[in-house]
């Protein structure tokens, strides 16, 4: 049985192809302005990687903010549901998922099957989302992907007094002008983003085990900053960025199985 999940986020598009309960292939690409185009492209690449044909996919589920615009999906499902499902598949003991995406942050409490019990979501304020990191990376003229490694070289502990991205940007520019070291600034930035996401997560009471998903989880500095902010150990997920797409592909399996039973 081959199914696919496709997660169209604000910044990236992700696809996962599952075959008989195993990941056959996964792909992450930068999204374009048109969600349907990103979806086609990412699926095409995943199919090539898997060495199958698009017709081999028996059922596919779309998710992410662009899920309504994916033309070839059999159905769509909310990101919350997909992230819950994906997390428990990757880490069976996971009961809380903190997902930091490019333009949002969410915390989800799940049961042992990955069903959503409670969740909280922020897409109203850029603070605590990946966008915070992106804006500062831009103004410091460094690569987003380098931030994690850079923060590990931090020697002096700094902290940002502003939660608002706009005010924090100004604060960071003054820190640079004061001669503060970039690794120290980035480390402080990670803590600020993590604190914001953690206060969201704490509002639904973080139950062990907790996992971090989303593209931001690939940043090692953010991972440890979130651990510190939550005061709990986080479990590592092999593929944090494809978690939503994976959940979608698993939901596709369910749909296929229940239709076969009928």
């Amino acid at each position, binding site marked *: 049985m081959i199914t696919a999940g496709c997660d169209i986020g604000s910044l990236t598009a992700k696809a996962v192809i599952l075959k008989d309960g195993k990941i056959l292939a996964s792909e992450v690409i930068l999204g374009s302005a048109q969600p349907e185009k990103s979806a086609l492209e990412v699926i095409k690449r995943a199919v090539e990687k898997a060495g199958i044909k698009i017709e081999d996919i028996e059922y596919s589920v779309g998710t992410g903010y662009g899920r309504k615009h994916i033309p070839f999906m059999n159905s769509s499902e909310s990101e919350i549901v997909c992230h819950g499902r994906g997390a428990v598949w990757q880490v069976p003991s996971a009961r809380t998922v903190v997902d930091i995406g490019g333009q949002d942050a969410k915390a989800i409490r799940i049961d042992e099957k990955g069903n959503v019990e409670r969740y909280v979501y922020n897409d*109203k*304020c*850029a603070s605590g989302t990946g*966008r915070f990191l992106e804006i500062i990376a831009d103004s410091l003229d460094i690569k987003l992907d380098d931030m994690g490694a850079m923060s590990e070289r931090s020697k002096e502990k700094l902290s940002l007094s*502003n939660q608002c*991205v*706009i*005010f924090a940007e100004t604060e960071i520019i003054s820190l640079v002008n004061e001669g503060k070291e970039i690794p120290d600034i980035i480390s402080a930035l990670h803590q600020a983003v993590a604190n914001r996401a953690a206060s969201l997560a704490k509002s639904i009471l973080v139950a062990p085990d907790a996992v971090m998903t989303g593209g931001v989880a690939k940043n090692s500095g953010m991972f440890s900053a979130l651990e510190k902010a939550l005061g709990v150990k986080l479990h590592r997920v092999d593929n944090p960025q494809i978690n939503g797409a994976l959940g979608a592909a698993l939901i596709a399996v369910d749909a296929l199985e229940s239709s076969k039973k009928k």
Partner: protein
Amino acid sequence: MFVAGCDVGSLTSKAVIMKDGKIVESVIIKSKARPWESADEVMGLALSKAGLTMKDIKRCVGTGYGRDKISFVNEAISEIACHGKGARWLVPSVRTVIDIGGQDCKALRLDDKGNMIKFITNDKCASGTGRFLEVMAKVMNLKLDEMGEMSIRSKHPVTFASACTVWAQADVIQHLNNKVPIEDIAAGVNNAMASRMSVLANNIGLESDVCMTGGVAKNSGVVNALEKNLGTRIKRIRREDPQLAGAIGAALFAAEKVNGGAK
């Protein structure tokens, strides 16, 4: 007898020199990197325009976010208190003051004697502050005052999904790329500003008369949008520049002290 008030804000610094309850001289400058530099410059300008020296000033009160860093003041008083006092001098019937600063916004309620009853302030989020307008004006390549005038011509103002400055800025860029008329974007920006300010103002309970102080009070687009949003008239300040309210209040506090509390 001369008294002075000096209001060092994040964006602009203001100085007012008063004599016998009247303004002798006032100056507004763009703030410098260091608050004390702003204070020295703005007060120096006001003094030289008035043909005075610091020795002629009997008492000077400082206010604004940089108030504790001004060398020449006799006393520093909070912006909230100074804005309340200044607003009442500008509009004696005022009961609710909405002040938009460069990096904050505040709403305050006064009783019929001008005493502060309640206040609320936001300096945690850029939305609803002068900074929001500044960010939008920059991406639209407009001057701050152009944005106000322009918005009046709008027929179909855009709306923003989120009040967040970061998301609204992204929306503005998208509207510009989609060739949405600039006056409709400007009007949308003003409406977003107003709706955020309304939340604050409604929080302390509105009482008439309502007036607006701070530089944004000169932006007719925002004032009109706020009026519509609050469903109440906003009394326009004509006696002096509304941006001077804090510095006027500071000077009035100085005068009170000099007069030994006698009003």
